[in-house]
């Protein structure tokens, strides 16, 4: 069974800058290196409502019925399913990525799993205590007490929303922040208008599959001129065995709105691979800004490459209006395989797209990740900063496309793509694609590859620092440019994660 936790965090801009300064010179976080296990690998024992493995139209109908969805949703899912089935028949699963894995048996996957509850809980008191303990273990405070200290949570357990806080405060501003299922029931007009408008169900194999079966996810709508005063966040977790995780997130920032959204992910350790195929769609109207940050820590598999999550995700944002901005920041440390290209369609004039990424592959992990920046409007700008770290037998690929269409007068792109290698059995690969159809465009691409050498590590050790400290400091220094785009809490978590994920890659 899978569950999703969403939380809201109060923005604390002023203190953040200060704390960030402190953090940059603090080595305490590296202490967590001592903690060398994948500590999110536990399983929650909770009764689940699960459909049998395999996929057909009946399963889709069942999912839609369980979610009490309006008719348009079922139709959309069925269309998606039929499209996906035709692709599957044609063996049209994408094969171009620089990743290798045995064929996935889509009939063995469970497409819906939810925790058994009699009714949808109305408050925290009605939530299964086992579930609350799980969140506790994951370091996500769920209680109202925690909210008072600045963190509020909207928890969705196994596809069903179980607890929401800070909702009223957001509602006062007209902001909608809820689970996708709820949005489909309570705001069908918005969902119908925007669902699939950035990633249509025909987009690609995994997006089609997601469109057919997605269980839940988050929905955010920020109305005209509203600056969302808190960071909205969702926490994803895969718990059940043999289950695919298919969530869908839809974020709409209306004219002049601003929202910052964070997502985090973990999963239990299991020997078999599990499929995670999510879709995220962002829409920014005139003068709106959406900032989307991810810290992905799905179970990466063991040292021999057994098990782990296949993270096949489609994320795309549309800068629909003029002067709009969409910024993606991702720290990808988990998953056996990552296949993911958070992209921006820069349609509005003067719109801005950004992509900041750290992708780490250790042991037998593989990552093929990057972005697409599609410049359509005039004077559109995009920035790409990609940092790939490979250790062990890890294979890390950056794949990025910058496309400047004919009408994109004065478009500019800057791409920087750096690779860091630890050891001599890993690999770094870079595939930048540039397609420029307007002669006024300026496109820059910079790339570097470096290696943490024995000489460097010895230099640190001779000054009294351990090998682990050396690697952490070098890696964190390498990633600084990306980390500073993350909200404070996430930046610290990301630093810690890199330390843990690199465990055993030295010496």
């Amino acid at each position: 069974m899978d569950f999703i936790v969403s939380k809201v965090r109060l923005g604390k801009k002023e203190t953040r800058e200060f704390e960030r300064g402190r953090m940059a010179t603090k080595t305490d976080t590296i202490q967590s290196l001592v903690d060398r296990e994948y500590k999110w690998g536990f399983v929650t024992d909770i009764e689940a409502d699960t459909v049998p493995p395999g996929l057909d139209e009946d399963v889709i109908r069942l999912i839609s019925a369980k979610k009490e969805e309006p008719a348009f949703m079922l139709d959309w899912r069925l269309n998606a399913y039929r499209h996906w089935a035709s692709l599957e028949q044609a063996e049209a699963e994408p094969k171009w990525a620089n990743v290798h894995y045995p064929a996935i048996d889509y009939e063995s996957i469970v497409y819906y799993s939810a925790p058994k509850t009699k009714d949808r809980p109305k408050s925290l008191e009605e939530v299964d205590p086992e579930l609350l303990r799980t969140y506790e273990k994951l370091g996500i405070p769920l209680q109202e007490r925690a909210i008072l200290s600045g963190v509020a949570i909207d928890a969705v357990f196994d596809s069903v929303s179980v607890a929401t806080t800070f909702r009223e405060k957001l509602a006062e501003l007209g902001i909608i922040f809820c689970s996708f299922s709820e949005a489909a029931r309570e705001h069908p007009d918005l969902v119908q208008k925007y669902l699939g408008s950035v990633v249509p169900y025909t987009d690609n194999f995994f997006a089609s599959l997601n469109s057919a079966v997605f269980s839940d996810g988050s929905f955010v709508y920020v109305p005209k001129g509203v600056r969302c005063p808190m960071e909205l966040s969702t926490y994803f977790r895969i718990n059940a065995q043999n289950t695919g995780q298919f969530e869908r997130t839809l974020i709409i920032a209306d004219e002049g709105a601003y929202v910052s959204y964070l997502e985090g992910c973990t999963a239990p350790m299991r020997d078999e691979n599990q499929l995670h195929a999510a879709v995220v769609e962002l829409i920014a109207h005139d003068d709106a800004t959406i900032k989307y940050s991810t810290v992905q820590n799905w179970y990466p598999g063991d040292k021999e490459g057994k098990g782990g999550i296949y993270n096949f995700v489609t994320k795309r944002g549309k800068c629909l209006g003029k002067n709009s901005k969409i910024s993606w920041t991702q720290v990808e440390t988990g998953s056996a395989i990552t296949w993911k290209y958070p992209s921006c369609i820069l349609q509005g004039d003067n719109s801005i797209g950004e992509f900041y990424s750290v992708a780490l592959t250790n042991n037998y992990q593989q990552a093929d990740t990057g972005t697409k920046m599609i410049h359509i409007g005039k004077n559109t700008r995009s920035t790409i900063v990609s940092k790939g770290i490979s250790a062990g037998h890890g294979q890390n690929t950056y794949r990025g496309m910058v496309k400047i269409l004919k009408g994109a007068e004065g478009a500019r792109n800057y791409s920087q793509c750096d690779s860091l290698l630890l050891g001599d059995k890993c690999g770094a690969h870079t595939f930048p694609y540039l397609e420029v159809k307007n002669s006024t465009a300026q496109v820059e691409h910079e790339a570097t590859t470096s290696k943490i050498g024995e000489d460097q590590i010895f230099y640190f050790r001779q000054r009294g620092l351990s090998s682990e400290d050396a690697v952490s400091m070098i890696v964190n220094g390498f990633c600084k440019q990306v980390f500073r785009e993350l909200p404070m809490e996430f930046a610290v978590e990301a630093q810690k994660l890199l330390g843990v994920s690199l465990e055993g890659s030295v010496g």
Partner: protein
Amino acid sequence: MKISDCRFPIDHGVEIPQSENLKSAIGNSFGGTMLEIRNLHASVDKNEILRGINLTVNAGEVHAIMGPNGSGKSTLAHVLAGREGYEISQGEVIYDGKDLLGMLPEERAREGLFLAFQYPVEIAGVSNMYFLRAALNAIRKHRGLDELDAMDFLKMVREKIKLLEMDETLMNRPVNEGFSGGEKKRNEMFQMEVLEPKLAILDETDSGLDIDALRTVADGINRLRNPGRAIILVTHYQRLLNYVVPDYVHVLSEGRIVKSGGKELAHELEEKGYVWLEESGEPAKSGVSLR
């Protein structure tokens, strides 16, 4: 002569005043044994480079180790610092009463052993300031002292930066990245002054320096001379020894110390070259023979 009773205690929480009178005391051994190398043999890929080194260095002393290229000078410095890749087949090294060879490189450093590198490496993305503070705090922690926060650290280093005539902007740049040869060497001296080692080993710190830089670096070394600290200068040329006058000079040849003497030995080498010694054969029992 082992005068362990009059060894000066090293308390790094307290500034030890540097006395001008120190220079007049050169030649006398102040403290107890800081380092004792006994019959040290080390090889790389079965190729023996150190073939039985014997050397005793007491606290308060400055020793110069000279010798032609390939004589094993840098290998000795690296083996003492604990660099991997050397096989120690025989011998032992006692540092400050402890078995040095049984310690990890970082443990040696935390115990006060400092190596100024001949070729300091560049470390992208890690600022000089951050790096040095982390190093200092690792050492302070080991000694049971409080770690310094950024403000205290800055206050402490500002003065030392000035003394070394370093450009303060170098502090915020990544460690050694884009530094000139001279800046790298000054940075090594700067780190040494901040970390206040008990035993400093300077590997060819004078190489590649112009005369002004050489003087600044030498001033730094002289500032560090004190009764509780020992310094080993590994150098090919006599030049540095004009500014940092050693208590003892040893000549290394083919992995052995073939001659030891006072500061005048360096001048003799300058005049006659190393060939003179290699021809005379007879390996000396260095260090010990002087006592």
